[in-house]
């Protein structure tokens, strides 16, 4: 479904992504892992168009999408959440998701019908599926961090994406919230048949739910394979446990 080939992106002298490859099949739950500063978020930003690649190819459903603006990529069926909470803080939870649903239904430019009567059912269904129904009327900025991260996912679902990209969906969450969110991701993949690409620091979780894992290190792809293959790979063990364990997080570009 999604192929990323030989992706390169530099910021000044710093090569954030330097030869990344990724393959996502329809219906798969794919994880990208790697130490801080490995280029995971940069890679996601390249896929969804927030950044333009210097070199390389991104093919989605057989069509080259590299360099397109984010809204065009979204319209082709890729939805995403952000690592750092990126919601509409002054709108209500309901309106946050509704904006995405209206965009999906191509109604964003409708000037004359009242928005409060549009896309209500779809929005409520999404809020229910992520467990935020009871907070629909709250102002999004007043939610707890954990709820805001869940709202992130809900907004992404508003576009009915075929491929859902989640950038550290559980960052900053309490252990309980993390478990609940991982359950949610599993459920989205299994029950709704969504293809999901995510990155995550909790290795236990990743090896537990992902069907395919891509390991990044210094902007490069070390390996992509089944969890068992990845676990036994020498290079991966080195990247995580060897020399680099002592390396500081300088060059962190994840934000």
């Amino acid at each position, binding site marked *: 479904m999604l192929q990323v080939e030989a992706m390169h992106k530099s910021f000044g002298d710093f090569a954030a992504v330097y030869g990344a490859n990724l393959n996502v099949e329809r219906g798969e739950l794919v994880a990208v892992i790697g130490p801080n500063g490995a280029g995971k978020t940069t890679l996601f930003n390249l896929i969804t168009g927030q950044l333009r690649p210097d070199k390389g190819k991104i093919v989605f459903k057989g069509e080259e999408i590299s360099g397109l603006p984010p*809204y065009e990529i*979204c319209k082709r069926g890729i939805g995403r959440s952000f690592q750092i909470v990126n919601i509409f803080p002054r709108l209500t939870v309901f309106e946050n998701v509704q*904006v995405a649903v209206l965009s999906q239904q191509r109604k964003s430019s409708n*000037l*004359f019908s*009242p*928005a409060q009567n549009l896309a209500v059912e779809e929005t409520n269904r999404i809020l229910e599926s992520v467990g935020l129904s009871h907070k629909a*009327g709250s102002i999004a900025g007043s939610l707890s961090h954990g709820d805001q991260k869940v709202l992130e996912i809900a*907004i992404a679902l508003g576009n009915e994406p075929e491929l859902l990209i989640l950038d550290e969906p559980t960052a900053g969450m309490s252990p309980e919230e993390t478990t609940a969110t991982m359950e949610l991701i599993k459920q989205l993949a299994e029950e709704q048949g969504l293809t999901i690409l995510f990155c995550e620091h909790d290795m236990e979780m990743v090896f537990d739910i992902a069907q395919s894992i891509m390991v990044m290190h210094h902007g490069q792809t070390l390996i992509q394979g089944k969890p068992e293959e990845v676990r036994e790979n020498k290079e991966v063990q080195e990247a995580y446990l060897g020399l680099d364990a002592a390396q500081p997080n300088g060059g962190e570009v994840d934000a």
Partner: protein
Amino acid sequence: MVKGLIDSKRLWPVLGIFVILLILPPLHAPRFYIYILSLMFVTSLLAMSLNLTVGYGGMFQFHHCAFYGVGAYTFALMLTKTSLPMWVGFIAGPIAAAVVGLLIGWFCVRLTQLYFGMLQISLGSLIWAIVFRWYNFTGGDDGIHGIPRPSILSSSNNTYYFILLVLVICLAALYTIVKSPFGATLQAIRDNPQRCEAVGINVRRHQLIAIVIATFFAGIAGDLFVVLERSVFPDLLFWTLSLEIFIMCLLGGWFTFAGPMLGAAIIVALRTFVGKYTEYWTLILGVILILLIFFLPEGVMGYLLRISKSASQRISGRSQVDAASRGHA
């Protein structure tokens, strides 16, 4: 409360009473007050149109009165230089304003925040300079005076009613737009343009449409100014007026629907009544602005809404909040 005026169920009766009150004055009040009220209406529409881009769109629309002036001049020129019926000019005004808005906006939306504002000031000032210097066509710094108007609008009462009618229609249209998916999306862009792009919204195009709509309504305000004053002059496009209407939005409450209207009324009243005693009325405006920043950062209307909301919450307690959230879901 950040989200606009009280919910629509309560808005319409309030608006109805307001309009009825406004229909009465010509029967009793002296002509001077009728004129001041009319001027308030014209300025209100101008401020409300600006607020679509500033309050709802979060754009630095720094030279909004350029479009007001273009609308007024177009209408005035159509009335004086052509023999077309008045309504043609009346429609041409806002269309010309919107076309200029489209041209200037096309460049502006490619820049962010302050650069957007700076570019708009420069391009708007360019239009002012053209109007100011082009004696043969625009009358230069003299402007155009004694513009003919149809006999039906010759009495000040009729002018008053005509302006009120147009204002009410425009407000209804603006309200519909603000509450539409377009308006909801515009507010989402104001809060977080990056996220909007990621949910499939073409942010620049959306902002440009908002500018065109806002400049269209500014053009209508320009039309009304001509109807009221029967003259146009380059000051209509001068940047200090843009600053003044910006202040109206801030003063009234730029996160509320009706706030700018209130701000416009306050400023017009100040200019008229304080201006009678001193030519330094802007000094008083400055003091008010400083007090505003410290004590009423949400503007007068924002403050009133907060008071009324907390009062009604004290009365009906939690049930109100629950009902509100249910009503939304």
